[in-house]
Each structure stands twice: as structure tokens, then as C-alpha cells.
């Protein structure tokens, strides 16, 4: 069974999810699924399917990098699942913390410094960089 066959259900789900720039390719015996999905909910669904096909993601034969589309200037929700999200002076965990945002808090995305770190502003007006994987668009 090829990797594409193994993950057929996942690939199909990604295709009908409204994902854009979807790319599915195999490289060095690892399947890569990349693209932008419309919401955090879709992202979670895809990861749930991945977990179902490959319990605990233990086979190490897939790298799924699907991310939610967030527009600069728009609102984003903090999804830390509990703890506060650190807002830092610069893009990196070695940077000093200049503010915090609570889980579920809606904050403003000012700009994307890079794929991993985004410049945000809280309701209180604190500005700094947060880890993008803890932010999703408000739908």
C-alpha cells in the first residue's frame, strides 16, 4: 500500500475542506501534506483523521503542515489550551516577555514577521510577537 493510499481519507478530507494551495507529495518515503485551511476547526478535524489512520502518529511517514489563513490586521484567537500566551519583544523564546494573552482571548494580528512568529496587539494595547501556532482566525 502506498502512502497516498494509506492516507486517502485524510487527503480527500483536505481536498473538500476548502483548503487552498493544497500540496500532497511524497519525498524520501515520507508523505507531505501542505496547505491553508479555512479554520482551526478544519485543522483539528484533519489531525483527528490523521490520528485515526495512524494512531499516535507513530509511523513517522507523514508531515502534515496545514495552517489557518489569517489576514494581517484581522482578529485572532489565542488557543493555548489553558496557559497564557506570551507576547515577546522580538520573534524568539529568548526574547523578553512584554505581555500575556489568556487562552480564548481575541487579539489583533498586526503583521506576520515570519511563518512562526506574528506581531500582535492585545485589547490592553500590549504589542509584541507571539508564536503563530497558538493563534487561529476568528470565524
Amino acid at each position, binding site marked *: 500500500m502506498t502512502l497516498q493510499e494509506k492516507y486517502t481519507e485524510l487527503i480527500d478530507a483536505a481536498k473538500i475542506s476548502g483548503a487552498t494551495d493544497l500540496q500532497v507529495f511524497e*519525498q*524520501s518515503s*515520507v508523505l507531505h501534506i501542505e496547505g491553508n485551511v479555512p479554520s482551526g476547526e478544519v*485543522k*483539528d478535524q484533519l*489531525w483527528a483523521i490523521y*490520528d485515526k489512520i495512524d494512531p*499516535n*502518529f*507513530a*509511523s*513517522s511517514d507523514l*508531515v*502534515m*503542515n496545514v*495552517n489557518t489563513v489569517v489576514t494581517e490586521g484581522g482578529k485572532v484567537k489565542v488557543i493555548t*489550551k489553558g*496557559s497564557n500566551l506570551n507576547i515577546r519583544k522580538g520573534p*524568539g*523564546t*529568548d526574547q523578553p516577555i512584554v505581555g500575556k494573552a489568556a487562552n480564548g482571548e481575541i487579539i489583533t494580528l498586526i503583521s506576520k514577521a515570519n*511563518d*512562526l*512568529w506574528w506581531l500582535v496587539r492585545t485589547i490592553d494595547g500590549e504589542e509584541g510577537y507571539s*508564536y*503563530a*501556532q497558538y493563534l487561529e482566525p476568528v470565524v
Partner: protein
Amino acid sequence: MKKLSLFTLLAIVLTVAIGFSSCKKVKDSDLQTTISTALAANPDASDVSVAVEKGVAVLSGTVKDEATSLAVAAIAKAVKNVKSVANNLTIVPPAPQIPLVNPVDEALISALKDALKDNSSVMSSVKDGIITLTGEIKKQDLPKLLQKVSALKPIKIDNQLTIK
């Protein structure tokens, strides 16, 4: 007739004298060849070039240190018929050996520091674009962890994590 033979004799003497003196005089080009050959045996002198003018060997080029510079000059001086050596060699210390690192791996290691900040029980290593995760993690935290690591765009995630 006598006059002629005297002339002839003079001509012969002159010819021999000139021939003798030119035989004594070693050509600069020959000296240059000899020195170059002698230097070719020394791997430290690979960037040295030599010119000879009127028996004076002029060394130019680069060597790695003072000792090599002196050694190269001594080799040239030791060649027979070299009157003197003008040592114009430049000493250029070799660049330090920088270990070859995969820049992609370096970037991944750096980015992993951020990605794994909230997962202190997870260890990671990187080789040839492959991220290996070891240690333990709660099942509920596993998808988020893998999402963070996948966003770094590795070639492969070798998941060796134990579920707590």
C-alpha cells in the same frame, strides 16, 4: 698570407674566449627552471613563483608562515650559481578550519527551541533535515506538538515519543 693567418688566429682566440665566457655564464632561465623544480618538491611552496635576473632569484607569492618563507628562500639560495635571493614572499596564515554544518539543520535546531518550549519532557535531535522526537508526552498535547514541529517543514518527523 702570414697576415691572414694572424687574423685567423686572433679570430679563433676571440671565438674561443667568447665561447668560453658564455659557457661559464649560466642562463637565468635555466636557473629559474632548477629553482622551480626544487620548490615543486615542497608542498608548502605551491603558491610560490620565482624569477631570475642576472643570477638573482626573486621569490614572490604566498606561504603559510615565516618558517616556510625562510625555508623556501634557503632552497633557492642552495641552487648552484644563484648569487642571491630577493625574498618577496607574503605570509598568509591559512583560514581556520570551519566544520561543515548543514544550515538547514542549524535553522531547525534553533526553531525547535521555540517550538518545544512548552514541552519540557520532549527531547529533540536533528540530522539531515529529519527531526527525531524522544521523551514522553500526554496524548492530548501530542497533536499540538506535532503541529508546531510540522510547521518547521522538516523532511521527516521521527516520532519516538512515549504516551504518558
